């Protein structure tokens, strides 16, 4: 055995002088504040713009006064026509809030999936939500199930159940022993998704009427039903958001890779299952009413990642706000560009989002994923 030279004293001495912490450590937590202010401002302006603009334009001053009256009981300074109130509270506001909740859910679910799967191409529909919801909605449409349940038509119920069942099937078929490896989950998602899409196509082709209606639904968009859908999707989305945020630090550790996450004491399989279930629940809920809106869950997280870096504790809340703002603007474009005809909002998100995304990628050369 060797005798060791001793530089030990100097190293031990260096270790004891931990007087002040460097900027590099405490620091990072404020890095997201500017982005938070920015996205919140964007959300508020987008929402105001979206309630002002339309076939009947309501002046911003009137919007604020009427909101003050409704929410805080303040008497408006001027008198406004009752049509303003009807348009604002029965038509535009529910649409804006519904769109905001949908955008928030899709963007934050996308962020979480990109982190969980360590894959920049992951989006909220990755593990079967889209194909499952499509199949469920189509089944409801072609079977012409007449009943309404709790005031809901069959389509959102079919879509919601279809999405949940499909994701459940994907997880079950991806299971290897007690674990659900990411790679098998992705592959099972592709396989089950392809199968469900094939069944959907088969059903659509059997009935021409079903084809048109299912196609409309698949393209996505607000279906115009007042406040009821907002009340239904909001609890799912709120629960999902809280669960994702609670797992944000675990998602950071996941970026090392699953083996290192396990060595750092993360209950890897549990986190994986919880994140997938939370994301699935919120995505299924918004898809059931809003249809399949693409690109929100991809472009918003990446844009924000370029702005604030890879920390999921910042990315998830920012995606929530940013996704809401982005989809409100997309929906505004969808209903104004060819007014009175409405474009499917999914068309707008892709048309507007893709070039913006490419621009971002080119401006910031350093990769952040």
């Amino acid at each position: 055995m060797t005798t060791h030279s001793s530089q030990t004293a100097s190293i031990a001495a260096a270790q004891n002088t931990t007087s002040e912490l460097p900027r590099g450590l405490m620091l990072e937590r404020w890095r997201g504040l500017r982005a938070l202010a920015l996205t919140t401002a964007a959300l508020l302006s987008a929402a105001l713009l979206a309630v002002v603009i339309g076939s009947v334009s309501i002046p911003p001053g009137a919007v604020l006064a009427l909101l003050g009256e409704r929410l805080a009981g303040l008497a408006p300074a001027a008198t406004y026509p009752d049509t303003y109130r009807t348009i604002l509270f029965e038509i535009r506001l529910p649409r804006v809030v519904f769109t905001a909740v949908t955008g928030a859910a899709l963007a934050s679910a996308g962020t979480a999936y990109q982190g969980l799967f360590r894959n920049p191409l992951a989006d909220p529909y990755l593990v079967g939500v889209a194909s499952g919801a499509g199949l469920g909605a189509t089944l409801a449409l072609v079977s012409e199930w007449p009943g309404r349940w709790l005031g809901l038509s069959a389509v959102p119920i079919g879509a919601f159940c279809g999405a949940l069942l499909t994701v459940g099937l994907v997880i079950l078929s991806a299971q290897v022993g007690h674990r659900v490896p990411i790679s098998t989950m992705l592959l099972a998602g592709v396989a089950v998704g392809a199968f469900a899409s094939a069944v959907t196509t088969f059903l659509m082709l059997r009935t021409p009427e079903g084809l048109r209606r299912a196609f409309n639904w698949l393209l996505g968009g607000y279906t115009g039903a007042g406040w009821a859908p907002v009340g239904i999707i909001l609890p799912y989305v709120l629960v999902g958001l809280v669960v994702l945020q609670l797992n944000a630090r675990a998602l950071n550790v996941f970026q090392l890779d699953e083996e290192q996450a396990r060595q750092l004491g993360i209950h890897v399989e549990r986190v994986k299952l919880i994140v997938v279930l939370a994301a699935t629940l919120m995505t299924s809920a918004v898809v059931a009413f809003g249809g399949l809106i693409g690109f929100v869950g991809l472009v918003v997280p990446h844009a924000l990642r370029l702005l604030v870096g890879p920390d999921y504790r910042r990315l998830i809340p920012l995606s929530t706000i940013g996704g809401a703002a982005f989809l409100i603007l997309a929906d505004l474009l969808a209903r104004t560009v060819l007014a009175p005809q409405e474009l499917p909002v999914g068309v707008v998100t892709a048309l507007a989002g893709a070039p913006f995304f490419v621009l971002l990628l080119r401006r910031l050369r350093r990769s952040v994923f």
Partner: protein
Amino acid sequence: MTPLRLLNLSAGYGARPVLHGISLNIAASQVTALVGPNGAGKSTLIRVLSGVLAARGGEARLNGTDLLRLRPAERARRVAVVPQMLHLPEAFTVGEIVLMGRTPHLPLWAGEGRRDCEVAWAAMRRAQVDELSERRADELSGGEQQRVVLARALAQEPQVLLLDEPTAHLDLKHQVRVLELVRELARVDNLTVLMTLHDLNQAALFADSVALMQRGEIVAHGSAQDVFTAERLSRVYGLHVAVGAHPVRGTPVVMATGTL
């Protein structure tokens, strides 16, 4: 000052058993090197002790608790790992990576507090990466990344440190730097260190004892002087070897002289 006692540990992949009843006393405040040919089960043993691979039987006793029965966070507060394949994600800073070492000490939802930052900072100074704290970890050299991961392991405040081929992919200077640091961690910080090494000469130079593995079993355990005999190494590695002495330190030096 806590030794790690492995009792009759066995593990494997699928139907293939890899470890056959390993029993080994890993001394506290010392560096134990795990050596042996490829496929002997060295990395598998590290994976079992770090909780990545479930054991099929046996125990790993530390202070009277069996590491193999602990929940992941409880185990990670006692055992830290520097894995062989370094994978540092893009865009995280060195400080952020090292702070991840605090994970087992924090509830899932909690953020790091001041003490966590202090522990991480002390770990970074110990591993000599404090100057790099605001650099992106994925843009560092191999030697620097190795020390970042070592700092992350130290931030776990473990009693046991496991390293899987810590010198792979490093040049000679960085190899020696890492091995000297590891030795200091055992001596000064009283960590119980178990590391796998391919280089028998470095094992002889830097480890207090060596455990020689072959086909999932411990063949010999003791000082390098006692374990590294030409006859035994020839048999285990299937190679003609000569064993000499280090010109300065006098530790065994192993050289291949031809295949059997």
